[in-house]
Each structure stands twice: as structure tokens, then as C-alpha cells.
């Protein structure tokens, strides 16, 4: 769009700095700085060479006389941010401090240029990129949907360290700046204009031209903060109000486990008090501390996990000669229960023309109501334009007739867990559908190998294991049975990504990965109840560790009947360590299914927002059925924590040992995305490594005597402890993924 060399032929190239910056001057005496992407990347990334190039460019610019400067990227984007791989690898706080200082003084030099300057932003302008734009005098953004501005550093456990915390509040006011930085969200051009972050919102093909026009004909109007934002930013009282409010919000949610949000608030406020360089130093120091801390490393590793998940389809195909496959565009979903309905609605919303089949018209009606409700809510919240919302609704059709194979690219069954029924459905689909029809099952307890047994094309069968509710849960387990072809798996992964989910590749086996690791955790929670520990205490311990909700609340959400089924499957596979407490059956029998029946461990109001109340039904049941276990002493909080979380670790390591999942990284990623394992801890194995595997193995040997084989240290864990390679992270090869600093 704005390859200025071509479309503005009166511009002569005058200087190239490294291979990253191209400087030119036009007849009107305006200078242009074009940012050139890092080799092999789509976007400019602020890495070592990138920063050096910017430093050299600004030195050169300082010697020029000109009417103004326009900084712009290419047609893919402006600046993606700092090199995340670099952040991951920095171990020495001094090194981090030096990098931040360099960035700060480079951007300060841009700010100090004697002529007016302008950032013409198209495509991503994130992290360090936006900080550069903030250091310039003016900014305009393109109207393209790929244009997004933001300072998402906090999502990686750090803060903007190139002066962003200092400059942003001056431009958009303190409340707006903190909101943007603490959420780490991004704004499109239109929203950026409304926030005052940019001055223009321009069609992308006119972007650079318009930037030049504004520079040569200085702004007619100056954007000013509104009265309210002015008071909240520039008066002591205003800042105190903001601080109180933000501090309160940081005491709940995942933010309370992370140091970055608090530091960010502190540094930002400091900048408004201390107008000198002191606050910039504080910013750099905070960045250095955060970037070398464990939380940052864990979050960055998860970020790499998301990048890997997005590339999973390509990885699966890497060994193949013919990498081509048809993307899934339309779906036939059989079974309109809670899962089927949710999946079908999600697919329709994300662009697949979807046919949902169920024999019960009532079920279909509920499915339609749920879909229409979801879409309408998104339209009300402006997440969908009216025509997009209508299309999302049009794409879902419901019928009681099992047909429509010809149109389908994927056939997904979400019917009752009945092997014969599923086999029949797949046989019919294979017979009536096209040859490359992807066959997918959402089973959570049956073996895929059995299902594939007598299909004409068993290589087409994969598992697409969604979690409930499918609209919200970010992970999909892509289950491979022995015969699944890489292409079928790749298609499934690509579909999962398009549905806005992270795929993780898991081998077929009881409970797959996530449920298998979750069940012992839930099982231990129930056992602790039986030993007389109060349910609320168990949940509190888990929540204090950083879980989004405690295990007993989670059981209520999942439904005790569903959990009981999963536990049965696991108990059958590993009776010694996975045998489920009879309490599950009793809860189901007593109708205490959890939220869906209004009562489980807790009692629930009629609205989903109602907070759960206390109920003693569980304890009564334990007494009545004689399930109470003697326990030597009331377990301490620490013991409760160990009892809950160590089984996740041991089971996860067993999965790794058996090859259910292929790497530690994927495993930890799946645990965080699938069961809500606290992200700042980085996943069970990462947490174990940083706590010291040796001590854990020792502790396990104590627990195994009292609480059985679930606490037996798996072979691989013992090996890990023997390796005793330090838990320190090592930079991964593919870590050239970039984004916010």
C-alpha cells in the first residue's frame, strides 16, 4: 500500500542504515524513515540490529535540516515490538537495564529532533513500536483492520521500558493510559483516534501522503485532554483517586500474583510527579528487575506456546512432500447436547457453514437459542457488526434429518458416549461424505482406536476434544489415534486455530491429557473432604495458589455426573492410583450435580452471576454413607496444597513418559490453558523445576506411604532430579517470535 519508493517518484533515496532503515528526502524537504523488517520476518522487530539501526538513523537525522520527518513501516505493519526471544534470554539485570537505557535515549533523541515528526502507522504497532510513535510529535493510523496499537508488555510479565509509561499518560490521560497498559489490550485505528492516541484515521493507500500533508500544513486543531482526564492526571488528588482504584483492582484476579502491574502503576505515577529523568531511570530499573524475574520467563514461555500452537499444523506437515490440504469450511455436527450445541455455534460464528443434527427438536431449539443469544450479545458489545452477526446466525442450521454429508468438510460427533452408535455414525459418514471428509469425535472417554477400527479411511479420524463451555475454553486437544494421518491432524489443528483456540496434539489414551491430569487433583480434593477438611478451605488453598477456582467449585461447574464418568474411565485404566471415591456416585444419586442442578458442594442462585453459597450436603453425605476417613492430624495449608498439586505433576510426568504429549513445553502449556494452572508458575513441570525436583521427589516418597500410589514419583521425575540441570530457562531455537517487548 505505501511503498513510497514507487508511488511517490519525486522522492530520492539518500541513505540506507544497515539493512533495516531506509532514509529519503522529497522535493518538499520532508524526510522519510522507512522501517525494514528483520530478515525472514514480516515486520520490523526491535532486536539488537534493529535498535542499532534506529540509533544510527537518529544520529544521521540530527545532522539534517528539513521541514519534517515521517516514520513508516511497510504494507504489513509498523513495528511488532521488541524481540521476545531477547527478553527470554536476558539473565543479567544489568544487561536488561542497559538495553532499556539505550532504547530510552534513542527514542529521546527522536523526540529532540529539531523538526516536526510524524508516525504513519499501518498494521501492528505494538510495544516498543508504539513507544517510538509516542516519542514523535504526531501520529496517524490507517483504517485497515490489521492496524492495532498497544502496549501489551504486561502480558509477558514486564512493562514498557522505552519511555512508554512516561509518555502515554501525557497523551491520553492517566486513567486511559493505565487501562491500556494494565490490560495489555490493543486498539484499532478508530478506537485509537477516539482515545486521542492518534490524530488521523486515514485510508491506508493515502497514509504516507496524508502524513506529509499534515507536516507541511501544521495541525489546525490540537488534541487536548478532556477536563476530567486532565484533573485525574495532573492534580495530586486526581492521581490519588486513580491510584486507589487501580490498586484495588490489582488485588484480585491473576494480577495479584504478578509483580509487573504494581510496578507499572508506580513507575507511571512517578513520571507524572518527577518531570526530570528520574522516572525514566525508575522505568528502566523496573524493566530490568521484571525481565529477569521468573514470572516474566514463565509468561514468555507460554507466549511461545501460543505461537507454537498456531504453527502446529505446519509442524505436522513438515515431513510431507505434499503439504496441501483443503481448509475446513463447513461442518456437520451430530448431537445437539451441551457440547454439540456449543461447538456448532462456535463454528458458525467463526465462519463455517454448520449443520447441527439432533433427533430432538427441543435440543435443537435450545442450541439455536444459545447461538442466537451469544451472537446478539457480541453484537450489543460491538464485537460483531450487524451484518456479521446476521451471517453468524445464518450459518447455523438445525435439523432432525441426518444428512448434508456432501457439503461437509468435517463431520463431528458429539453424541452420547456409546461406541456402537459412534462407529455407525462414522461408517455412514465415510460412505456418504467426500473422500477427504475429516471425521472428528468429541468423546472424552472412548478409545479412538476402537472407533477407527473398521472405517474405510481410518486415517481421517481424529479427536477434537473441546472443553466445556466450548465458546470460552481456550484449548482443544487434538487427539491422534494410531492411524490418523498427519494431514487430517493438521487440518484439525488449523480448524482449531481458526476457531480461536489453541490446539495441543495428544495421543489417544484414557482421559487423554487434560482430564487425566485434572482427575487426581479433583480426586484429592474429595478425599480431603472425606478426611474432614472444610470444602471452602480446600478451594481457598487452590485459589491462593493461583487457580481460577478451587477444585470443588470446579467439580460443581463441570457437574458431578460428568466428572464421575471421567473418573470411572481412568479408574478402569489405572485402578491402583485412580480409583474414584464412591462419593461421586452418591453425589449423583442424591441429585447434587453442581451448578446445573442448583446444588452440589455449594448452593447456587438462579443467575449464573450469583455467588455460590455454602451447603453442608457434601459433609452430611460423607457422614451418612460412612465415608469419613480417619486422619492422623488436620492437614496444614501447605499439606493441602501438596496433596492437590503434586498429583497433577506426577500424572503429567507419566503422560510425558508414555508419550501422550510430546514435550514439556506443550504439556505445561496445555495445563495452563486446559485446567487453568497458574500461568505465572509456568505449568506443573516448570514449577517443579524451579522448586527443585529433588525436594519434590523426597516429599513424594513421604506422601506415597500415607496416601497411596498416586504420589509415587514417576521414573522420569526421578531422572529429572538426578540430572539436576538447573531449572534455568534455555533459549529455544524457534524463539524468533516477536511481539510486545
Amino acid at each position: 500500500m505505501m511503498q513510497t519508493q514507487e508511488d511517490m517518484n519525486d522522492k530520492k533515496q539518500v541513505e540506507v542504515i544497515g539493512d533495516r532503515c531506509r532514509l529519503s528526502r522529497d522535493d518538499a524537504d520532508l524526510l522519510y524513515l522507512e522501517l525494514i523488517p528483520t530478515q525472514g520476518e514480516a515486520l520490523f522487530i526491535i532486536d539488537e540490529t534493529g535498535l542499532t539501526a534506529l540509533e544510527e538513523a537518529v544520529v544521521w537525522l540530527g545532522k539534517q535540516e528539513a521541514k519534517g520527518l515521517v516514520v513508516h513501516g511497510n504494507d504489513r505493519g509498523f513495528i511488532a515490538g521488541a524481540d521476545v526471544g531477547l527478553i527470554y534470554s536476558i539473565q543479567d539485570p544489568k544487561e536488561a537495564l542497559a538495553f532499556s537505557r539505550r532504547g530510552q535515549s534513542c527514542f529521546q533523541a527522536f523526540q529532540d529532533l529539531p523538526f516536526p515528526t510524524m508516525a504513519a502507522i499501518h498494521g501492528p504497532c505494538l510495544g516498543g513500536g508504539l513507544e517510538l510513535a509516542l516519542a514523535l510529535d504526531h501520529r496517524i493510523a490507517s483504517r485497515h483492520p490489521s492496524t492495532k496499537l498497544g502496549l501489551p508488555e504486561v502480558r509477558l510479565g514486564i512493562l514498557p521500558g522505552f519511555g512508554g509509561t512516561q509518555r502515554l499518560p501525557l497523551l491520553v490521560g492517566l486513567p486511559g493510559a493505565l487501562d491500556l497498559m494494565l490490560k495489555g489490550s490493543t486498539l484499532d485505528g478508530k478506537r485509537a483516534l477516539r482515545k486521542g492516541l492518534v490524530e488521523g484515521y486515514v485510508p491506508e493507500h493515502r497514509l504516507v501522503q496524508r502524513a506529509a500533508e499534515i507536516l507541511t500544513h501544521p495541525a489546525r486543531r490540537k488534541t487536548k485532554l478532556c477536563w476530567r482526564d486532565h484533573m485525574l492526571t495532573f492534580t495530586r488528588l486526581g492521581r490519588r483517586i486513580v491510584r486507589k482504584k487501580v490498586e484495588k483492582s490489582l488485588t484480585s484476579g491473576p494480577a495479584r500474583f504478578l509483580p509487573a502491574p504494581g510496578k507499572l502503576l508506580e513507575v507511571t505515577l512517578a513520571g507524572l510527579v518527577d518531570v526530570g529523568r528520574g522516572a525514566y531511570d525508575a522505568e528502566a530499573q523496573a524493566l530490568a528487575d521484571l525481565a529477569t524475574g521468573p514470572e516474566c520467563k514463565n509468561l514468555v514461555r507460554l507466549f511461545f506456546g501460543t505461537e507454537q500452537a498456531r504453527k502446529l499444523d505446519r509442524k505436522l506437515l513438515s515431513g510431507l512432500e505434499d503439504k496441501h490440504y483443503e481448509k475446513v469450511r463447513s461442518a456437520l455436527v451430530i448431537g445437539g447436547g451441551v457440547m454439540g450445541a456449543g461447538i456448532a455455534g462456535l463454528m458458525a460464528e467463526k465462519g463455517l457453514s454448520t449443520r447441527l443434527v439432533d433427533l430432538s427438536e427441543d435440543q435443537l431449539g435450545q442450541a439455536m437459542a444459545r447461538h442466537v443469544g451469544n451472537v446478539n450479545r457480541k453484537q450489543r458489545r460491538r464485537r460483531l457488526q450487524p451484518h456479521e452477526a446476521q451471517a453468524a446466525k445464518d450459518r447455523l442450521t438445525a435439523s432432525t434429518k441426518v444428512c448434508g454429508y456432501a457439503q461437509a468438510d468435517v463431520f463431528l460427533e458429539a453424541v452420547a458416549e456409546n461406541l456402537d452408535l459412534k462407529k455407525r455414525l462414522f461408517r455412514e459418514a465415510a460412505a456418504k461424505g467426500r473422500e477427504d471428509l475429516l471425521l472428528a469425535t468429541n468423546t472424552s472417554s472412548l478409545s479412538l482406536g476402537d472407533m477407527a477400527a473398521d472405517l474405510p479411511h481410518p486415517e481421517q479420524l481424529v479427536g477434537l476434544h473441546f472443553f466445556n463451555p466450548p465458546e470460552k475454553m481456550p484449548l482443544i486437544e487434538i487427539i491422534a489415534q494410531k492411524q490418523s494421518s498427519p494431514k487430517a491432524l493438521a487440518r484439525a489443528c488449523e480448524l482449531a486455530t481458526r476457531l480461536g483456540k489453541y490446539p495441543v496434539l495428544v495421543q489417544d489414551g484414557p482421559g487423554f491429557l487434560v482430564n487425566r491430569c485434572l482427575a487426581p487433583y479433583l480426586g484429592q480434593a474429595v478425599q480431603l473432604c472425606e478426611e474432614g477438611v472444610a470444602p471452602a478451605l480446600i478451594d481457598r488453598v487452590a485459589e491462593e495458589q493461583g487457580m481460577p477456582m478451587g477444585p470443588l467449585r470446579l467439580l460443581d461447574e463441570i457437574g458431578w455426573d460428568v466428572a464421575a464418568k471421567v473418573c470411572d474411565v481412568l479408574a478402569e485404566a489405572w485402578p491402583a492410583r485412580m480409583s474414584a471415591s464412591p462419593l461421586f456416585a452418591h453425589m449423583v444419586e442424591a441429585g447434587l450435580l453442581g451448578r446445573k442442578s442448583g446444588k452440589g458442594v455449594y448452593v447456587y442462585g438462579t443467575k449464573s452471576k450469583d455467588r455460590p453459597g455454602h451447603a453442608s450436603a457434601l459433609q452430611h453425605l460423607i457422614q451418612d454413607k460412612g465415608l469419613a476417613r480417619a486422619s492422623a492430624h488436620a492437614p496444614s495449608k501447605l499439606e493441602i496444597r501438596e496433596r492437590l498439586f503434586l498429583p497433577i505433576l506426577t500424572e503429567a510426568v507419566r503422560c510425558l513418559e508414555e508419550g501422550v504429549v510430546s514435550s514439556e513445553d506443550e504439556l505445561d502449556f496445555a495445563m495452563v490453558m486446559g485446567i487453568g494452572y497458574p500461568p505465572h508458575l509456568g505449568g506443573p513441570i516448570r514449577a517443579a523445576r524451579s522448586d527443585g525436583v529433588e525436594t519434590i521427589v523426597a516429599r513424594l516418597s513421604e506422601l506415597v506411604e500415607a496416601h497411596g500410589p498416586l504420589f509415587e514419583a514417576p521414573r522420569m521425575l526421578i531422572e529429572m532430579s538426578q540430572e539436576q540441570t538447573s531449572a534455568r530457562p534455555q533459549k529455544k531455537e524457534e524463539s524468533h517470535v516477536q511481539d510486545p517487548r
Partner: protein
Amino acid sequence: MSRSFIPEKGKRPVLVAGIRTAFQKSGTGFQGLSAADLGVAVMQEVLARAEIRASEVDEVILGCCGQSSKEANVARVLSLRAGIPSETPAYTVHRNCASGLQSIEDAARRILTGEGEIYLVGGTESMSDYPLIFNDGFKSFLGALARSKTLTARLRQLLRFRLGYLKPRIALLEGLTDPTCGLVMGLTAEKLAGEFAISRKQQDLFALASHQKAIDAWSAGLMDDEILTLWPGNAKKAVNRDNGPRDGQNLDALSKLRPFFDRREGSVTVGNACPVTDGSAALLLMSEEAAEARGLKPMGRMLCSTTVGLEPSRMGLGPAIAAPKAIQDAGLDAKDMEVWEINEAFSAQVLACMEAMDSAEFGRKRLGLSGAFGAPDMDRVNPRGGAVALGHPVGATGSRLVLSLLRQLQAKGGGMGIATLCVGGGQGAAQIWEAA
């Protein structure tokens, strides 16, 4: 008068699948849905039932009479919304009440010339969605207001406002009024009732029979597979049953109704005329070879399609001219027609058609015969009820008649039948089909 469209044997287009929404009286089950909203699901369903991919469709042709200004060329809007690729063209046909029939004929012609093999046809109509329109006075008032530049000019223009401007034009009423003879459709029926001496009681009895036949067909479970369940609006309620037919309808209630169109001397009431209705139907028409290649078993073959013209004020007699012409042109015998689906715009109008076909004078004058053509037995006419009970969503009815006709013939195990309608503006249309 043009000749009938008669595809030769072996080249007869076949209908492989068809489905419709339940028909809902305006302002009831489908209130708030546009013509396009009504059609999206049935179009996708008919493709699924026939196992045809959306990209295989050569063209989409739909009938619709009251196209909304927000859905110009509603067939195209619907085609895109139903997921048919943007490369597939689509157009809307409008032959008033015969639009749904015309869409089939258009597709049949194209199949015959080899332009395409697979056509998605049908009709859709949301009579609930017909608008109220600003009257001309208000329109010019607003125009002048927009042209006034200064504040004083604007104020001066505002002062010209008259209360009469608030009286809207009713699109539904205008659409049902013939602009050349000035008669609203109901009055053309009154005219026929007078000319053929159809009494009020005859009309009411006919209407009652229509309701009873429709209710019987529903309770015998004959209709279920014809209908696709929709969940309109917020999807709280399923719509899967025609709501026109009244179970408890009786002669007493019908005879108490006041004439609607001619309040003093008339005999046509809302009870013995068809109600204003919303609904949509989708059919899949293919060449015989294409159906065979895909292993599809056709529902029926088209033998003949014809359209005739007559004076607009007697438009109700359309079937009495079109049906005999179609049967004669196709070289068939009226007795071969096992089922007659005659659209019931008005009870008086259908009864007048029966009288006309039995009249020697009508036969001589209008059909060029030596005597009467001969009306069908009443038990062959609309055996599952007609529009008086089911309703008449103008653009969709023609498609419903063919769908119902073929389903009835299939249930009988074969045979031929005819679907025919009177058409506002003075036309008649008829199609002869043979069950496959």
C-alpha cells in the same frame, strides 16, 4: 396467446427435493422476519436433503412479490446468506401469485437449453414485512425541508406541515389492488361470485372444507416432512406447524363474519378468503441426467407449464383457462389428473372456476371448445386443504402447490397432477407434473 412450455420426453426437468417453512399468518409466528430471513434455512436444508454441495448449484431463481427495499433482488441476498458461492448468479421473479411457479418454469427452460443442470428455485414472502409508506404530500414536504438552506426557510417550511401527512400508504393494500381496473382483489372475487351466482353459503362451506382437509392432513402426519422447523427471533419458540387451519372451524362462525370488501352487499369475508401470510419454500430442480448421475431419486417430472392472460377484473378465472389449456396442449386427458392443486385466493374464485369449466358457454367462448371442458371431481381438488386455510404468501405459494402436489402423488404411488393459480393483474398459470 403463447403456446405452453412442453419439454419433450426424456428431457423433462425433475424435482429432487423440496421443503418449506410452516406458513404463519402475518404478524404471528414470523413477525419481524424479512423475506430473506425466512428463506435462509430452507435453502440450506433442501441442498442437504439432496446431498448437493452449494457450489454445484448453477443458479438461484426465487419468486417474491413484495420485495423489501432493504433486500433488492432478494434471491441474490438469500443465495449469499445461505452460503451459495458468490460466483453463482441469482435473480428474483415476479409474476404476482404465480411467482413461485414461474421460478420453476424459468429454471426448467434453462435446463432444457443446457445452460445449467441444477437450479435452486422456490419463493419467499414476508407479508408482515410490507411497509407503511409516507404519502406523497409528506414526501414533498420532507424534500422541500431538506432543500431549505436557511433557518428561516426551514421554519417557514415546517409551518406548512399538515396532519394529513401522517396518513400512511399501506403497501399491502396497494399491492393487492389492481391499478388498471381499480379493484382490490377481493372485489374481483365479488364480481365472479355475482356473475357465477356463488352464494355466501357455498363459499363458507368451501372454506370450512379447506380447513378440515388441512387439519386432517396434519393430524394424519402427512405434513411433517414437508416442513422445516424454524426458531425465529431469539429462538425461544419453534415454528413448525401452519397456523392458518383452525381445528374448531364451523359454519356458524364463518357465517357470522361481515363481508370485508363490499361491506353492504358482498359475500367475500376474511373467513372464506385466504389470510395474509408469511412463508418460504425451496425446491431443487435438475436435469434428469444430473439427478441420475448423483443417484438421486426424483420426486417428479415436469410435463407442461403454461401462462394465460385475461381481463384483470376477472383474474380469478385464470385457472379455468390455464389448466384446460395446459392439459390440451400437453395432449392429456383431464381425467388423468389425479390431484388438482388450485390455489384458493378466494373461495368464490375457485368455485367460479369450477362453474366455468362446467359451463358450455365458457368452453366455447373462452377455451375454443365445442362444449364444456368439465370440472374435476371435488375430491381431487386440494385434498390437503388450500390457501383459505393454509394462507397465501404470494411469492411462495406456487412452489408450495408443486411440492404438495408431488408429495400427494408420491403417496398415491404415482400419477399426474396439476398445480394452477389465478394471478392478480389478470393472468392464470398452470403446471402439470408426473410423479417419478
